[in-house]
């Protein structure tokens, strides 16, 4: 409620920052769904961010659709493209799938760079929102971003709690075992792949509605995925709460270290490696191992009943009885 009413009292600056926050949160949540639950590590999600940006441009400027309808069109178009993409990249597994997705992103980037109608390499501006007064436009984009951020978490939580989620975790923890138990591994992965692509595209659309200028090298840049990976790894891979924690930490670090330039990314890289090795469940994992919190009720926790006498005292009691 507080977040939804923000445009009424918050300045444009904080709104812009939060749009970025919610968009990255949505991107990280989608990546977490892919990597943390389906075991599909992609370093090419920028393919869908860029596609989201450019389909938004076409939907709004060329077809003249209103923004919300435009986002629905973006979701549908990118969903179809993701299905076609899967026919190629699903031939690869593990680390090779990761790079394969990167090649896909590069292919889209080069196609856009060679298309004059989309502004080629120099980029293009989204014009149809330019006539809106800035406060109204910013408020609309803010609400879209909030909806996308919250929506992505709701979708991820629903998927993880569903039969599909159960199947996915079975696949992640042992693909051949899951297959032998009758899980349709290919379908489960494909479903998540398409959902994650759509989510990333809509988040990309929101980002570029705010920036208003799309440039292929930036929109299809691997930096997006680098940020996303850090957010998920730092927060907690395979936990719905992970990306939220990670996004907060990421934005805090960004504010603290922004003027450090490339050193900031070096620190992020070292942190990500350290967390991967030392705390594979991320900060959220560290937190929940101390305190039993769960925001979404998808964790199953083994509770050991230690209220009974432990063997030591029991033995002592027996010994006492014997005297």
């Amino acid at each position, binding site marked *: 409620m507080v977040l939804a009413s923000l445009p009424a009292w918050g300045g444009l600056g904080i709104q812009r920052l939060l749009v970025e926050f919610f968009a990255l949160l949505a991107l990280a949540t989608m990546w977490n769904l892919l990597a943390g639950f389906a075991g599909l*590590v992609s*370093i090419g999600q920028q393919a869908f961010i860029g596609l989201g940006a450019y389909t938004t441009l076409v939907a709004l400027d060329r077809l003249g659709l209103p923004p919300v309808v435009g986002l629905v069109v973006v979701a549908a178009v990118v969903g179809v493209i993701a299905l076609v993409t899967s026919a190629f990249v699903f031939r690869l597994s593990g680390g090779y799938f990761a790079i394969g997705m*990167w090649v896909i992103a590069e292919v889209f980037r*080069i196609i856009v760079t060679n298309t004059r109608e989309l502004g080629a390499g120099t980029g293009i501006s989204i014009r149809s929102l330019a006539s809106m007064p800035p406060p109204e436009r910013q408020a609309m984009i803010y609400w879209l971003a909030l909806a996308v951020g919250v929506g992505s978490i709701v979708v991820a939580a629903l998927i993880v709690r569903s039969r599909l989620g159960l199947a996915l975790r079975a696949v992640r923890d042992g693909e051949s075992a899951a297959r032998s138990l009758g899980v349709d591994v290919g379908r489960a992965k494909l479903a998540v792949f398409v959902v994650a692509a759509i989510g990333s595209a809509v988040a990309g659309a929101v980002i570029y509605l705010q920036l208003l200028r799309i440039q292929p090298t930036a929109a299809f840049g691997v930096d997006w995925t680098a940020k996303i990976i850090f957010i998920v790894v730092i927060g907690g891979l395979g936990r719905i709460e992970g990306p939220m924690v990670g996004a907060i930490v990421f934005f805090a670090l960004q504010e603290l270290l922004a003027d450090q330039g490339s050193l900031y*990314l070096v620190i992020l890289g070292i942190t990500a490696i350290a967390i991967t*090795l030392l705390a594979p469940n991320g900060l959220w994992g560290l937190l929940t191992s101390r305190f039993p919190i769960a925001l979404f009720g998808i964790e199953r926790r083994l509770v050991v009943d230690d209220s009974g006498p432990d063997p030591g005292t029991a033995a002592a009691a027996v010994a006492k009885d014997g005297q």
Partner: protein
Amino acid sequence: MDWLNAIIQGVLLGGLYALLATGLSLVFGVMRLVNLAQGDLTILAAFLSLAIVEATGINPLVSLVAVVPIMMIGGYLLQRLLLNFTLERGVLPPVLATFGLAVILQNVLLSVYSADSQGLDAGSIERSSLRLTDQLAVGWLPLITLIVAIVILVGLQLLISRTGLGRSLRATADDPDAASLVGIDARHIYGVAMALALGTIAIAGVFLGIRTTFGPADGPVRLIFAFEAVVIGGLGSLWGTLVGGIILGVAQALGNQIGPGYQILAGHLVFLAVLVFRPAGLFARQTVRRA
């Protein structure tokens, strides 16, 4: 004649790509590790050579005597101190750790050398060429690169098939647990494999730096080309890597013949076509394990 020339230049370019890809192929073959920092390590080797050339004034080709051992030692330490701890813990840790390493390398190079493009000057050999006919000429440097790639691949193949170390490498690749039962230290063998890989990467980096300009952000595209060469040729096959590199080089040269914007795209399209029609690669070993 233009097209024939494009094919010849493409084959030669393929030599460089094979050189770039050998390390990736070797490391994947021995320990199923996909090294996402491969491209950035290649660029690191080029910068290392640049630093040596700037300090001593020697030819970059001569700097290989220092760059190769430094990269090999670095590779062994990288494997023993970091990457070994990511293995056998699922798909994610190695991918995340090497991706993190890639980001670190890019940004360290960026802060030391700025984003400017650099080049290695190997002297007259860069510009001299071998005349085949009146219209066809082959540059000495690309030709030497291709020959070096073939020599390295033959050498590695002999090392793996003929020597005791090669036997340990093969045994560890097949089954690290069984190998350790007969006294092979898998962690050490993985370190040796990474050292060999970074040795080839060092050579690739120096040849790349002589051939084209390079900057701190150029690693990813090198990784992608290396990866495409490996997949086109077939996972785990060193000869496949050579052929994959050459096919990629020819595809890019032909794409460039159509239009400068299509050079890289043509390579990607050939790669995607191979994925769909021959997902195991063109020269995959018969016994490739189902991953």
